[in-house]
């Protein structure tokens, strides 16, 4: 028995102290159609991979189909993923599952079956996909009564129960009641901007205390699962500070448009670490290339501002670059070339760059990869609202 259930997104789990507490009730909520199921599926697969038994109640998919779809996360031990079959009865075919709902018009029968499955299998994790299926079909008071009872049974059996809920039936009061029954609320949102569809999630403790993240952009990768996804991290700073070296130290595979040892267009690379994926754009440092900066400086998730930690005279330009990108964008300063003599003191760097207390300064040696991962982690935590 662990007292946490990991989400499977490393950087989040690190900050949640290993994941959601267990037992717990987790509301996976959206008020518009948004992708929620991937998070729930990842939650189950992460449990199964940790050797935990998981129960999946799926009102929309046949268990065979759901099992097949779960293989998009890679192979898993099917014996640990127990399904409650709610579709065979809808299709009037016999079920081959140990737990099957026979009468879809009977809320008590549905919930009794789910509760029996929880009591008998004692899963670490339960997913109910989804509560709006019930909210759409049965009277509100009855749904609430059984919902509450389900969570009690889950708690008694030591399970972390998560339930998807797309609200288009209930008003604000009911949604608040549901949040009150839950320990965590994970909200989902999908946004479209100029043809690019982006997905976000936000995690908070119900009741306003404890964890509260920003909207976290995420993506799904076949065989990998859900990852935090930053479409744009800028690596920028004055001429010859080591920006391209930072991009190369961060990314396993990069392209650079450089001539005579200096970047004339941009560096580009892709990061996959800590349950995090990011596109990294390195800009040229010289003012005459500022137009390149302007092309890529839109909708920036975060900035790694690279400076040469020995050159006070470059800091005016560094400050100007930061202003060009926007002071509100989460930023980490990399005081690079920390292996050279004549290092500026952190206070001097802070005051010359006019940094607020929220901006960390990290000493790095980009040529040896030192400090780079730490800087990225700090930046990611700032963007996610975990710092």
């Amino acid at each position: 028995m662990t007292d946490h259930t990991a989400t499977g997104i490393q950087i989040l789990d690190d900050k949640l102290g290993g994941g959601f507490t267990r037992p717990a009730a987790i509301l996976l909520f959206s008020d518009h159609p948004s992708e929620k199921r991937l998070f729930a599926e990842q939650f189950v697969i992460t449990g199964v991979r940790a050797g935990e038994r998981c129960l999946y109640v799926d009102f929309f998919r046949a268990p065979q189909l759901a099992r097949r779809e779960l293989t998009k996360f890679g192979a898993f031990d099917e014996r640990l993923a127990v399904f409650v079959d709610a579709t065979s009865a809808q299709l009037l075919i016999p079920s081959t599952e140990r737990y099957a709902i026979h009468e879809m018009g009977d809320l008590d029968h549905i919930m009794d079956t789910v509760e029996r499955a929880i009591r008998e299998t004692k899963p670490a994790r339960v997913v109910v996909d989804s509560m709006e299926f019930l909210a759409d079909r049965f009277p509100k008071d009855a749904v609430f009564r059984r919902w509450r009872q389900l969570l009690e049974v889950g708690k008694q059996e030591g399970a972390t129960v998560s339930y998807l809920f797309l609200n288009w039936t209930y008003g604000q009061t009911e949604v608040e009641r549901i949040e009150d029954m839950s320990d965590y609320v994970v909200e989902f949102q999908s946004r479209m901007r100029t043809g690019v569809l982006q997905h976000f999630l936000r995690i908070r403790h119900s009741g306003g205390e404890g964890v509260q993240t920003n909207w976290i952009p995420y993506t799904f990768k076949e065989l990998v699962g859900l990852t935090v996804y930053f479409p744009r991290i800028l690596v920028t700073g004055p001429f010859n500070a080591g920006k391209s070296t930072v991009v190369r130290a961060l990314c396993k595979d990069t392209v650079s448009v450089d001539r005579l040892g200096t970047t004339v267009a941009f560096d580009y690379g892709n990061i996959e670490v800590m349950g995090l994926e990011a596109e990294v754009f390195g800009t040229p440092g010289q003012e005459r290339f500022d137009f390149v900066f302007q092309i890529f400086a839109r909708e920036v998730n975060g900035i790694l501002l690279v400076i040469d930690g020995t050159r006070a005279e470059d800091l005016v330009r560094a400050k100007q670059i930061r202003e060009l990108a926007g002071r509100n964008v989460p930023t980490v300063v990399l005081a690079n070339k920390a292996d050279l003599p004549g290092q500026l003191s952190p206070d001097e760097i802070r005051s010359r760059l006019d940094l607020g207390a929220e901006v960390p300064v990290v000493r790095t040696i980009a040529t040896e990869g030192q400090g780079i991962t730490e800087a990225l982690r700090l930046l990611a935590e700032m963007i996610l609202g975990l710092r």
Partner: protein
Amino acid sequence: MTIQTDERTTREGDAPLGVRAQLQSAIEDLRRLADIIAVAIARRDGLVIAHDLPKDVDPKRTAAMTAAIVGTSELAARELGQGRFLQAIVDSEYGKMLSTGAGEEALLVTLVRPEANMGLVLLGVERAAARIAAILSGT
């Protein structure tokens, strides 16, 4: 897109998916022209919107490079007093890459065989760019 769409989201007729389908069909229609090898739609700031690039080409890198080419070309055209930017053509040994503005926000990238009838290609590209601009103006 790497994200798989929830079938319920599709069933509920979410508007964004409509846009994506329309963009995909604009790409397919342009692809039908002879001599066109591949097509991509990117944002002017270098993000991929939609594409049918070959498997061995990284769409994200392509989008970033195209954004840099167009951004630079636009500026050069303006600085040199040549007026509004229309298109950048990168002419290479095994083909041409056309980067055409498709509205305020997007770019249309077309890869063309070297021996192509450029008059015909340009006409198709121009139409596709206008269509993409119209689709995206609704989002």
